[in-house]
């Protein structure tokens, strides 16, 4: 599929047009002083931060909460205990300005969620317009985790920012369909060569194969876990902001004879995560929970699916209240 180009001044118009067919979301500055995902509004000016916004795009695929079904729990109701599917989301969503790490996270999460109808339905219904990275933040490390600042995995369209224009490369059929309008023009020679140059930048070493080669028990029993876990407060910040954390819990919420079953985010950092009905907790100590987060991302997941379950977005590094830096833990693990 051939790349096209669009003048920067026209991007807002294009997104405005897309709003007819999609719920369009893009990063925008919140009152709290950080960028986060919000519905795109024409006329407010596009805001494109360097690096990733506060939250990941997982909410669009794995919402907090996902209603699995509704039910009625009053015996007198003729519909009692009959399960009703939630109304499906009619309008398609389009996410504009998704960085390569976040786009790739959707591909990674799709591996364990392959048989999950809710996740897959949302994936089908959501288009990703990616924005490749010319600059990285000091917390970014996608190159260690098998990604790249110019990676296009998971995207439908990939945009690269140039001086006054964007080069627009369709990655999927449905991405191609987004750029049929006359707003787009043929790219100039010089635009193409600029982008080629960026694509050709060298990537770092992917940690996945090294980690797959490590002995599981040696990693599990490594001496550094104690020190890492001692600072951790076992909150959900790292896992809730993380694009590739996908653990959930399920509860029924019932009120006056009507109810719904919801799936909502859970975190292996929480003591209740593995609590058994008997009261026994195989991960009762903090060290076991802290270790699980890293072992899951860097050992169990790659052993099962291939890549590491981390895209190097650096959100957990940026926002961990006690500065547990996953890059340090990763290099500790690589050193075992």
């Amino acid at each position: 599929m051939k790349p096209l180009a669009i003048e920067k001044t026209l991007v807002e118009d294009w997104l405005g047009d897309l709003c007819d067919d999609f719920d369009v979301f893009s990063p925008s500055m919140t009152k709290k002083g950080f960028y986060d995902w919000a519905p795109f509004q024409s006329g407010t000016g596009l805001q494109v931060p360097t690096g990733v916004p506060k939250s990941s795009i997982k909410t669009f695929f794995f919402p907090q909460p996902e209603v699995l079904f509704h039910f009625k729990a009053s015996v007198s109701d003729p519909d009692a205990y009959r399960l009703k599917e939630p109304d499906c989301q009619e309008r398609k969503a389009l996410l504009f300005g998704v960085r390569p790490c976040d786009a790739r996270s959707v591909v990674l999460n799709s591996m364990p969620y392959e048989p999950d109808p809710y996740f897959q339905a949302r994936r089908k219904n959501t288009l990703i317009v990616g924005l490749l990275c010319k600059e990285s933040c000091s917390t970014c490390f996608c190159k260690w985790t098998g990604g790249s600042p110019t990676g296009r995995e998971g995207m439908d369209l990939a945009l690269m920012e140039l001086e006054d224009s964007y080069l627009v490369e369709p990655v999927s059929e449905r991405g191609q369909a987004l750029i049929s309008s006359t707003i787009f023009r043929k790219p100039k020679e010089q635009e193409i060569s600029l982008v080629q140059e960026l694509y050709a930048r060298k990537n770092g070493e992917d940690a996945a194969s090294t980690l797959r080669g490590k002995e599981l028990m040696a990693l599990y029993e490594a001496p550094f876990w104690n020190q890492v876990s001692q600072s951790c407060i076992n909150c959900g910040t790292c896992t809730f902001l993380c694009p590739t954390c996908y653990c959930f819990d399920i509860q029924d919420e019932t009120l006056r004879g009507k109810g719904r079953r919801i799936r909502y985010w859970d975190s292996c950092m929480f003591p209740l995560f593995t609590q058994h009905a008997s009261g026994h907790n195989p991960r009762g100590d903090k060290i076991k929970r802290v270790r699980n987060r890293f072992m899951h991302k860097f050992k169990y997941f790659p052993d099962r699916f291939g890549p590491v379950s981390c895209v190097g977005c650096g959100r957990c590094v940026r926002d961990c209240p006690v500065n547990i830096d996953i890059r340090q833990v990763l290099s500790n693990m690589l050193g075992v």
Partner: protein
Amino acid sequence: MSTVNEKIAGQIQQIATQLLESKEVALFLGYTQGTVPGAMQPFVARDVEDAKRLSWSSFCVVNLANYLPGLLRSLEPPRRPNEPPPEGPLPKVGVVATGCWSRNMVVQIQENQIDRERVVIVGVPSRGMVDRRKLQESVGQREITSIQEDDNSLLIRGNGFEKVINRWDVIRDNCQTCVHPDPVIYDRLVGSLSGDRNIPDRFRQVEEIEALSVEERWNWFQEEISSCIRCYACRNVCPLCYCPTCFVDDSRPQWVGKSKEQVDTALFHIVRAYHCAGRCTDCGSCESVCPMGIKMRLFTRKLQKDCLELFDFEPGLDPDIPLPLTTYSTSDPEDFILTQIRKGDEK
């Protein structure tokens, strides 16, 4: 010339080394330098080598009292939940404490969470800690790549910019309005006590909200918590939150819904704040750690103000004065207790 913080760090290292070397303590809880600008990491030193990594700066925003009960327990021989602790002296922990952290330790002693005999408190009169949100704002939300601290200013560098800012301008709200920056209990002291401060309008932030109409206040509250992701960092970092199972985690009964619905989030915040009434020392850790920038400290601040006005009580100043909500006196005010409204009395 070393800065104030460098001197404090040096003294902490010295004391920790001596305590660890003499085996007076088994562990020493302090801070070490973090990996990103303006981040400090709570850190447990176990030996003299570790003690060299202890550090200090204006970015120590997590209240170390939070870790004490767990650390002390980790030094006790394993036992069943209801088994009493073993006879004889148990290993001690050394810990750094600013004013508010030490006040939280007083509350922990009063609530039987820590044993005063088992902690060696190294007091550090606080000069206030930096609010990273104010800092970000002062550089127009650009990415900061390095921060160099001087006694009264911070030199901030980023990609293509450099800026010197006044330290006090970016100090956290709770520190700017703190009247007891000195540790109230300590065994060693770093530096010298600075005395209580007089801040006439220290509840200004709360008064501004109190002045709003009921509807405006409700809107303010809803707006403030709207971006909460229920990560519970605010709860987990708080030294007052030590229940084995928090009410939000309970599922039988389910006191509060578990997802990001507004009504559930509101209930979480209201109940969390009330559970801190008469105990919160305004250490500001909860607010500092929130990834979403929610100012939930204002909720507990309001209760602190009420507690001061109704009971003339501030938590953590004296282990011998019982906490107002665990004791009863006939002179307690009771006009705020909700009673049945008789017809004709409604406003």
